[in-house]
Every structure is written in C-alpha cells, then in structure tokens.
C-alpha cells in the first residue's frame, strides 16, 4: 500500500509537506472562458441597441418618419408633409427570443400592415410565415380587434410559437393605439395555458424515465428513446439546445402560456438535476440521441477513432458550448449560436451552412455511434456542467456538516 492510500497517522504523513505550485491549464482556460463570456454579454448589449427609426425607414424608404409627440413607441409616417399612417411597435417573445413587430394603422383606425422589425428566431421559421401569407389575416381589420387562436386567428403549423408571438406583439401595439388614439376599449388577450397531446405524452415519458432510474429496464429505456424521437422530436420539436441557455442569460425565456412544452421539459430536467443529481435528458429524452441510436442500430458499425481524437475530442463540446454562448451573447440572438442539427432534422427548416451540418453529423453518427453526444453536443455539456456543479456543492455541504 502506498502512502497515498494510507490514512494511518505516521511520521511520514505528519512531516510538513513542501508547497508545490502547478500550472493548471484547464483552470486557466475555464477562467478565460467565463471572463470572455461576461465580456461578450456586455459588448453584445451595447452593440445591439435597436434604432427603430432606421428599421421603420427600411420598411418605408421614401417616407418622412417622425416619432409621435403624444404616443409611446409610435412613429408617424408622413406623405406630402401630412401624417397619413401610424406605426406602433411592441415586443413579445418568439421561439428564439424577443421579436419586435410594427403595426401600421391608418387615420380611420384600420390596420394597414404588420411588419417584423427585429427578431431572434431562426430565419427559416419567419420565412415560413411570409410564405403562408400569415400577416394578411391582420390587415384591413379594426385596430381594436382581439384574437383567439383557432377561432379568428390561424397559427402556421411548425411555427406556432412564432405565430403567437407576432399576434401578441401586434395586438399589444394595435390595442394601445385603439385606447390612446381612438378611445376604444379592446378585449384583452387571454393568456391561457393550452396543453396538447404531445405535452401529455412528454409528461408520461418523463415519468417513465424517472421510474426506470430504479427499474433499470433496458426494454423500457429503448421504448422511451423511440417514443421521444416521435413525440419530443417530430410532434413537439421541443429539444434542449444551447440557445435555451443563451436565452436564459439574456432574459428571453418564453412565458408558461407561450411555450408550455419548454417549461415542462426544461423544468423536469432541471428538477432532475437539482433533486436527484442526475441528467435525465441525455440518453433518455433527447430525440437527437434517439436518431443516433437508430442510425447506430441500422449500420451496426463502430469505427475506431484516432488516439488523438479519443484524447482531445471530448474538449470539443466544451469549446462548442463556449462558442455557442459567445455568438448568442454577442448578437443578442440565442438561436445564432445554436449549431445543433436537431431542429433541422425534425422540421427540415434551416438556412445556409446548417444544411451542411445536418448531413455531416448524421453521416458521422452512422459510422461512429453517438458521435454528436460524445464529442460535439453543447447542450449536453451544459447539462453535465450543471449536474457536476450541483453534486460538488452537495458533497461540499455534506462534508462541512461532518
């Protein structure tokens, strides 16, 4: 037995040990990462102060635009020196963060147009709304018109949260003008929590994962993985990604009524970490893990990795988490740093280079099982960091009590 493993007091152990100072590269990198993220947060906040008049001018390039002297967040659009239109703006949370909508109102209190002035959503989702003539349902309507999904307001399938965000921002802007300018009393929007079938199945899957922590049943685990692929992936398209963590720090979290699936899944995973000290998402509920699981079963391949990859590639997910947060903070757009191909696989909505990431990652996972989870997933890395921090804290508290 070496001295290291021995707890018996002896002369050797009681002798004063010389102080050793060792350069810990890992700690230095972690410190630099935290400092750079804090700096990026503040730089992003200062760089991205919106100038609404420029955004409005981009919509009406030839018009003379001035801020209203008696209405908040409202601009007058002039023609031949006379104000002919009002644009009132309001901000609501969309899928990826805040979206600012400008509602253009005529002198007789009718909505002429609804324009998105700024958003943090994936551009493909916003394009989907334009392609489906989503905005037309707001046009030529009285300024005090209220909305209720399914009755007098159509959401675009696959972009439900963005649709609701735009509707709420438009209603806030239009109703403000209805009250302040036209003396009307519009019916306020109901912010009810609407649960769908996918939410109930998601809750059941979370429950099964918790039960299986005790049972450790392989068949049940596989069933949950495949069900999460169908429900959390294809039905709800509700994955945990690095954009959620950026949004958390930037204060862009959706409301409970706005995105109940996010709170159900995120809440359960967070509670699992805090209460059980376990990450119940990775390898159980993550639908992209399920994709990799299915690919691996189909191929039956497990290509060997280069020793350098084995040794160093585990750091890639840490770098990915840092880079994803950096881009999210610098641009104040959480989805800008979200490089995960999850959403694209289930919605087939993407843009530019995202179309290269998905096949590259899917092909790689076909040959090397769970390659994305093992080496590249920033959300998995974030959940692991939180779990480790929680467990370290709990052990420290228990140690202090003893």
């Amino acid at each position, binding site marked *: 037995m070496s001295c290291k493993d021995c707890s018996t007091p002896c002369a050797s152990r009681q002798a004063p040990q010389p102080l050793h100072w060792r350069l810990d590269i890992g700690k230095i990198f972690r410190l630099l990462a935290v400092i750079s993220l804090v700096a990026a947060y503040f730089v992003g906040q200062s*760089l991205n102060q919106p100038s609404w008049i420029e955004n409005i001018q981009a919509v009406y390039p030839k018009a003379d635009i001035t801020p209203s002297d008696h209405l908040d967040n409202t601009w007058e659009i002039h023609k031949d020196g006379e104000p002919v239109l009002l644009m009132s703006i309001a901000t609501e949370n969309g899928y990826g963060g805040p979206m600012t909508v400008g509602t253009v109102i005529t002198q007789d209190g009718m909505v002429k147009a609804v324009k998105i002035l700024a958003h943090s959503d994936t551009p493909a989702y916003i394009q989907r709304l334009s392609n489906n003539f989503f905005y037309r349902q707001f046009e030529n309507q009285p300024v005090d018109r209220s909305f209720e999904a399914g009755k007098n307001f159509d959401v675009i399938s696959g972009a439900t949260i963005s649709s609701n965000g735009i509707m709420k921002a438009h209603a806030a802007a239009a109703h403000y003008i209805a009250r302040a300018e036209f003396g009307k009393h519009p019916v306020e929007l109901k912010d009810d929590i609407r649960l769908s079938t996918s939410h109930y199945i998601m809750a059941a899957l979370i429950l099964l994962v918790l039960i299986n922590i005790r049972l450790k049943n392989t068949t049940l685990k596989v069933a949950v993985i495949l069900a999460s692929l169908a429900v959390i992936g294809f039905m709800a398209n509700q994955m945990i990604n690095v954009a959620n963590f950026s949004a958390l720090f930037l204060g862009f979290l959706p409301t409970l009524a706005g995105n109940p699936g996010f709170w159900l899944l995120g809440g359960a995973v967070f509670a699992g970490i805090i209460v059980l000290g376990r990450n119940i998402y990775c390898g159980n509920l993550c639908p992209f893990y399920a994709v990799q699981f299915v690919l691996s079963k189909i191929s039956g391949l497990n*290509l*060997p*990795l*280069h020793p350098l*990859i084995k040794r160093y*590639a585990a750091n*890639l997910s840490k770098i*990915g988490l840092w*880079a*994803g947060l950096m*881009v999210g903070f*610098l*641009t104040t*757009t959480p989805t*800008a*740093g979200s*490089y995960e191909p999850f959403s694209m696989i289930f919605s087939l909505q993407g843009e*530019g*280079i*995202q179309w*290269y*990431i998905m096949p*590259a*990652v899917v*092909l*790689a996972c076909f*040959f*090397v099982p769970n*390659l*994305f989870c093992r*080496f*590249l997933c920033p959300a998995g890395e974030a959940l692991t960091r939180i779990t480790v921090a929680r467990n370290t804290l709990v052990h420290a508290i228990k140690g202090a009590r003893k």
Partner: protein
Amino acid sequence: MAKQVSGSMKRTGIIISSVLMVVATASITAFLIDSLTRHL
C-alpha cells in the same frame, strides 16, 4: 467476443472516422462564423 479486424481495416476505419469528425467540426465552425458575421 470482440471481432478481430485486420490492421489495414482498422487504419481505414480510423481514416474514415477522422475525416467525418473533421468535416462535422468544420461545418459547425463555418456555421458559427457565418452566423456571427450575419447578425453583427
């Protein structure tokens, strides 16, 4: 029992997995740089 594979097959496997890893990492890096430049 683990399957025995020849040295050349193992080398080919290492080359393929390394290429796939590099392509996946490069595409992610390109996306992040592109995203940053587009949003700033």
